[in-house]
């Protein structure tokens, strides 16, 4: 019985404690860097688009809200021709970021994307692409990939031997 009264008293004095509520629009919330908010497409350290159009984000998406089409430039570098996220369907689960092999797609701590018109929640590549490396600086997929796409020559990538001379019989 006394413990009940003590509980009631302890609850009561919370009346005078500092409130945890952040009065949002007037007061902004401090979010962690890995907060799963708005999805962006980042660029590699050389300023090129990181997205290589591998479709893994699209297939990982549980609500199928990512659609893209891969294409190639004259050097054979893959990039998305269009990249569309329907944020009115997005559930911000971050699977796309997990699936991305090139750190291109990232969720950032920004959630202020409410719209009156649902159509405005359809983001195209121009809306998604940011001029930054995001959370993972320094990574350029085409430097570590085997193929040549205008970033490095065959055999000049990280962890690569020079190309084999097919005519050589030396061991």
């Amino acid at each position, binding site marked *: 019985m006394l413990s*009940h009264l003590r509980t*009631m008293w302890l609850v*009561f004095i*919370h009346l005078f*404690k500092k409130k*945890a509520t952040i*009065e949002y629009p007037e007061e902004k919330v401090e979010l962690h860097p890995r907060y799963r908010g708005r999805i962006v497409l980042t660029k590699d350290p050389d300023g090129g688009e990181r997205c290589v159009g591998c479709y893994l984000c699209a297939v990982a998406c549980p609500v199928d809200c990512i659609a893209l089409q891969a294409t190639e430039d004259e050097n054979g570098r893959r990039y998305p021709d269009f990249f569309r996220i329907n944020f009115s369907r997005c559930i911000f689960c971050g699977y796309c970021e997990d699936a991305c092999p090139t750190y291109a797609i990232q969720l950032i701590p920004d959630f202020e994307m409410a719209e009156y018109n649902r159509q405005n929640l359809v983001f195209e590549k121009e809306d998604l692409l940011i001029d930054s490396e995001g959370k993972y600086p320094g990574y350029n997929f085409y430097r570590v990939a085997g193929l040549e796409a205008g970033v490095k020559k065959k055999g000049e990538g990280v962890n690569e031997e020079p190309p084999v001379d097919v005519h050589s019989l030396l061991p």
Partner: protein
Amino acid sequence: MTTEQILIVAGVLFVLLNIAAGLIWVERRMLALWQDRLGPNRAGPLGILIVLADTLKLFFKEDWIPPFADKWVFILAPAIVVASVLMSFVIIPFAPGIVVADLNIGILFFLAMSSMGVYSIVLGGWASNNKYALLGAMRGASQMIAYEVFMGLSLMGVVMLTGSFNLGDIVAAQKNWWFVVTQPVGFVIFFIAGIAETHRLPFDIPEAESELIAGYHAEYSGMKFGMFFIGEYLGITLISAMIVTLFFGGWLGPAFLPPLAWFAIKLFFFIGLFILLRASLPRPRYDQLIAYGWKIILPIVLANLLITGAVALWLRDH
């Protein structure tokens, strides 16, 4: 019926309904503050217009009657709870002369009316034709029947000391000592029984959302749900008013404030206590509640009655 009486009836009804509605806001704000939050503070000054928003919302919600329900009983059930609680207010003396019906069997009338409330729960649960609703109704019925007994018995001490069932007389009898001093056990038990009667937390076993979804009103929506909702707040106000009247001297108080103000201050203190209880105490198990009632409260309340009777006899003789 005089104009004055009509004014009183209208005034009491108006004030009560507003209090009940206002409690929507009060309860949310209080709960929030006790949980280190702010609660509704956007609509209107301090968020008071949440009441209006909520009411409008309830009015505009789809008023749905499940096809499997017993339609007429389903509609009737929420009306009973509001009607029976409002009827109880008839006998409350808010201030000298401000009472709707100054009955000489006031307490009995109150007990009779408040026990009508169980019909609402049983009928609502039964008419919903839903197993959770029915379980809630069954729990509600047994809980209310049990606590009705202690409630009545706990009041008998006050009645003995006053020698009257008339609430005006009871208030007047507290001129020197509030009955909470002479009847502390009676007060505590009446308070507990009152919580159980209004099935508020921690005794909200009939609706227990974590077990029964929403118990007897699981199938209700729109304004029919709103009636249960309002009924609950009216219940809180009624029990608080009864506590004030019976144990805390009603309108009595130092003369620098009018009697009605004293009544209101005391009333809101107890309403606040109800909300604090909700904020702080967990819900007991159903069997614990019933066992607690019959095995602990009943003996205590009977003992209280015995001792009060003896003391009253002794006092009369000396």
